[in-house]
């Protein structure tokens, strides 16, 4: 009998769903074993009955629940709780569900400041009241799914690696546990590291990288050593994909970009901002040169109280 799957998207762009479709051929092997009973992005299944006759939000029972996206408003919180009630194993898919993701950068400001900025403060917007009718009220900040309900499996990534989704689903179908290893992206990175010091200045993020395409990875210099801020040292590994020649290369590095940190901290409780600033100061770079440090080093992980409005300083 196929395993029932319910999928739900909350505060998200939809990229993680595209990632599910991007699984490609392995999806054909998986599909006979899966039966999707609820998936708003793909199928018409309404919360309050197909004709709106229900009074309670209802999601069908399923063995595996997948939630992508963080929790931003009351409706999403309700849906997350309903998903937890109706599913046996709950997967948080993507960085938004796992850590809050890009939207959680809004956690640097209070709700009032956000409303003021969006509806009144912005120069290109006509001043208006904060909309309140027919809209679920926002929560005080963006939450990761595991702050609202218990999550059994977390698959980070923005969007995540399709291979990882297959791996996690296969593990669940076989009854095995799925956990990413506690090591950094650098542990999976094949590039050449020469020496840490002698980097000089941190380059601007948009400065284009000098590289020779087609050069074997072990001859390519570490991007950090070239002066580009790479979040590899403080980011959990798992995104690396095997490409031609059998080398495992982290996905962003494969595209000659530095790691952006979408897999989150290496272990629970680690603080990438503190670790990264500590690391770059001890290898002789000036941490002051990192532009917009707070947002940049918490880009995908603003939930779970990592980003919050700065405490008001007393007037002195």
């Amino acid at each position, binding site marked *: 009998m196929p395993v029932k799957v319910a999928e739900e998207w909350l505060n998200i762009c939809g990229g993680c769903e595209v990632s599910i479709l991007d699984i490609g051929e392995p999806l054909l092997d998986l599909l006979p074993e899966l039966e999707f009973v609820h998936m708003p992005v793909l199928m018409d299944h309404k919360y309050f009955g197909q004709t709106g006759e229900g009074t309670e939000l209802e999601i069908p029972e399923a063995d595996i629940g997948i939630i992508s996206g963080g929790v931003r408003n009351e409706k999403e919180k309700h849906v997350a709780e309903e998903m937890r009630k109706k599913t046996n194993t709950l997967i948080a898919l993507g960085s938004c569900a796992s850590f809050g993701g890009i939207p959680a950068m809004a956690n640097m400001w209070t709700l009032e400041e956000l409303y003021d900025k969006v509806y009144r403060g912005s120069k290109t917007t006509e001043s208006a009241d904060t909309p309140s009718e027919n809209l679920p009220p926002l929560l005080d900040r963006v939450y990761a799914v595991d702050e609202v309900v218990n999550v059994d499996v977390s698959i980070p990534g923005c969007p995540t690696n399709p291979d990882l989704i297959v791996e996690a689903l296969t593990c669940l179908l076989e009854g095995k546990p799925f956990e990413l290893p506690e090591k950094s992206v650098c542990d999976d990175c094949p590039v050449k590291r020469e020496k840490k010091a002698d980097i000089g200045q941190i380059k601007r993020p948009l400065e284009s990288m000098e590289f020779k395409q087609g050069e074997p990875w072990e001859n390519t210099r570490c991007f950090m050593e070239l002066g580009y801020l790479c979040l590899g040292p403080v980011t959990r590994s798992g995104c690396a994909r095997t490409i031609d020649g059998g080398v495992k290369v982290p996905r962003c590095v494969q595209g000659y970009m530095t790691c952006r940190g979408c897999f989150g901290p290496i272990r629970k409780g680690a603080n990438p901002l503190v670790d990264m600033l*500590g690391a770059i*100061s001890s290898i002789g770079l000036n*941490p002051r040169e990192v532009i917009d*440090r707070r947002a940049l080093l918490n880009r995908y992980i603003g939930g779970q109280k990592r980003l919050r409005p*700065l405490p*008001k300083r007393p007037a002195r």
Partner: protein
Amino acid sequence: MEGNDFEPIIVTFCCNWCSYAGADLAGTSRLQYPPNIRIIRVMCSGMVHPNLVIDALTKGADGVLVCGCHPGDCHYIDGNLKAEKRAEAIELMLEDFGLEPERFRLEWVSASEGPRFAQVVTEMVEQVKSVGPSPYRT
């Protein structure tokens, strides 16, 4: 906890070779200094990772004082210089966490400088009292 009644908690990391002995000397010499510090002995000021400082400040401490050997005197040759490099990054982190720079201080105290230790602690306590309790303290 406001005003004059505020008694800060200051986590103090002292290196085993100089500053801890300096603190010991201050004690055996019966020097008076405010009781607000909580000394943690570490092998070297260079091992005080920024994580420890930020964790202390965001989980209840009002200030952090790191004491190490004078430059050139480090038992491990350059541990205190590493601490000095990190101190600048720690100041930035304080900014990112919305904490006042007064809450963190790195000082050199040798084993023979009991009076200096007492003086540094007195100054630090005054400094933290002037900025008030940590906003992360609940």
